[in-house]
């Protein structure tokens, strides 16, 4: 029954990965930009949450009310200044600029907070768990994370499908120039998409900070896990990203059960297998813009 428990824990972990990956998926979907600073920004949010909890005594969930809007604003500004410019330059520019950004963020955090491990304290919630079967217990906080992950993906999907701006984003992603002919200013639209993406990263970062210990270099693995979730699930599909996160989570936890301390490696291997045999992912978007 160890295995059933591992699978359940893996699925729950997957919710966090999907939450982390949502913004990455959105930015690529709307503007074909892979944000290499995505992981670093998640860690910024974790630090922000930690500082707020420590300095103001706010309960961790309340810090979201500050962290998410702040991160969204950061995203907006980033897109309007650096990233829109980079998108107008040569095709390597966005990759180089976001990588540079990741280095800047990571080292700023290192200078400000040192390399010590940190975490966000949720008090008693950290240990609380629900017993599902005699062998399987699910932590309350991880469960909340999972539910939030699913809700975020669903919400994003709904937003893109049903709202005017969501539709405008899909149109701009298909054909930016034709969208301009409809009166759509892609610069603001991109900024809105990035604001949403980074706001979501802010949300994810706080959950991450509660769940695990983090330090400035954590941005790297965060980016990698988010990326793996997106690719396993299939580019262009938000539900795919959810499934990708779940599969990655299960691979890691079950992998660690089978080969102790090799969970992450197993996750990578599953990712590489998907890349080898189903390179478009498990639920790829049908239409290419």
């Amino acid at each position, binding site marked *: 029954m160890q295995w059933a428990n591992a699978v359940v824990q893996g699925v729950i972990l997957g919710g966090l990965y999907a939450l982390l990956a949502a913004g990455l998926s959105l930015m690529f979907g709307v503007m074909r930009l892979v944000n290499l600073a995505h992981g670093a920004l998640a860690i910024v949010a974790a630090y922000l949450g930690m500082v707020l909890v420590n300095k103001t005594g706010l309960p961790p969930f309340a810090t979201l009310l500050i962290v998410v809007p702040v991160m969204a604003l950061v995203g907006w500004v980033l897109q309007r200044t650096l990233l829109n410019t980079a998108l107008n330059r040569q095709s390597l520019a966005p990759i180089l600029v976001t990588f540079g950004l990741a280095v800047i963020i990571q080292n700023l955090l290192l200078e400000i907070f040192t390399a010590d491990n940190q975490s966000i304290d949720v008090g008693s919630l950290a240990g609380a768990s629900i017993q599902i079967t005699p062998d399987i217990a699910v932590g309350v906080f991880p469960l909340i994370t999972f539910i939030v992950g699913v809700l975020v993906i669903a919400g994003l999907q709904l937003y893109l499908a049903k709202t*005017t701006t969501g*539709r*405008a984003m*899909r*149109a701009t*992603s*298909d*054909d930016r*120039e*034709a*969208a*301009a*002919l*409809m*009166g*759509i*200013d*892609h610069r603001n639209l991109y900024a809105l998409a990035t604001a949403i993406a980074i706001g979501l990263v802010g949300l994810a970062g706080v959950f991450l900070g509660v769940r695990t210990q983090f330090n400035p270099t954590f941005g790297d693995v965060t980016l990698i896990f988010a990326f793996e979730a997106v690719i396993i699930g299939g580019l262009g599909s938000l539900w795919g990203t959810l499934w990708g996160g779940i599969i990655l989570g299960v691979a890691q936890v079950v992998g660690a059960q089978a080969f102790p301390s090799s969970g992450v490696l197993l996750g990578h291997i599953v990712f590489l297998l998907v890349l080898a045999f189903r390179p478009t992912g498990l639920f790829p*978007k049908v*239409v*290419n*813009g």
Partner: protein
Amino acid sequence: MALLEIENIDVFYGDVQAIFDVSLSIEEGQTLAVIGANGAGKSTLLKSIAGLCTPATGEIRFNGERINDVPPHRRVPLGIALTPEGRRIFPSLTLEENLLVGAHTKRSGYWNLSTLYETFPLLADRKSRLGTNASGGEQQAAAIARALMSNPRILLLDEVSLGLAPVVVEQIYAALPAIVEQGTTVLVVEQDVNQAMKVSDRVQCLLDGRTVLEGKPSELSRERIASAFFGI
């Protein structure tokens, strides 16, 4: 005052000049057809009006105001709508969603989903079809309808007949009277001279980026048009 006035523009693609000293004017409510062979500069002309190209010299005035420096997305609220060459329907959106995007710029007027479905019954049946799965005729109807959703003062139609069967082209052009009836100014770019002559109040012919002929369809003979069109 003419609704749209183009005065002596030169337009370049990089180092290649596509339009040489072209002038044009349309009164509100008129339908002007710009005809010419492939490469004559017709689409470039429309793109310049919509803002996708910028003239190197000369002026484009809409409603009396110079719009040379206005970016394309700001020309739509002014009342300029382009149905682009190749239709450019958003492939991952349904035809109805394509129309809805056309309404992104909110201008009041006669055209909305239901009136457009009346005018293009072909669309009403297919509205849930994804852009990428729609036929050429459906895409063309959708592209025009999409442009009309912004209730423009001037509608620019770029090579509507391209790649479509004659029967389908007839169906598309059958909708034009309804558009003109609303008082919309129309600028039609066409290679199909017959069709252009049928629907327009005035005709302007381009050859190698220059205007070579202008006038009312009734006043222009076949021979004059042919020689202007082909440059012989």
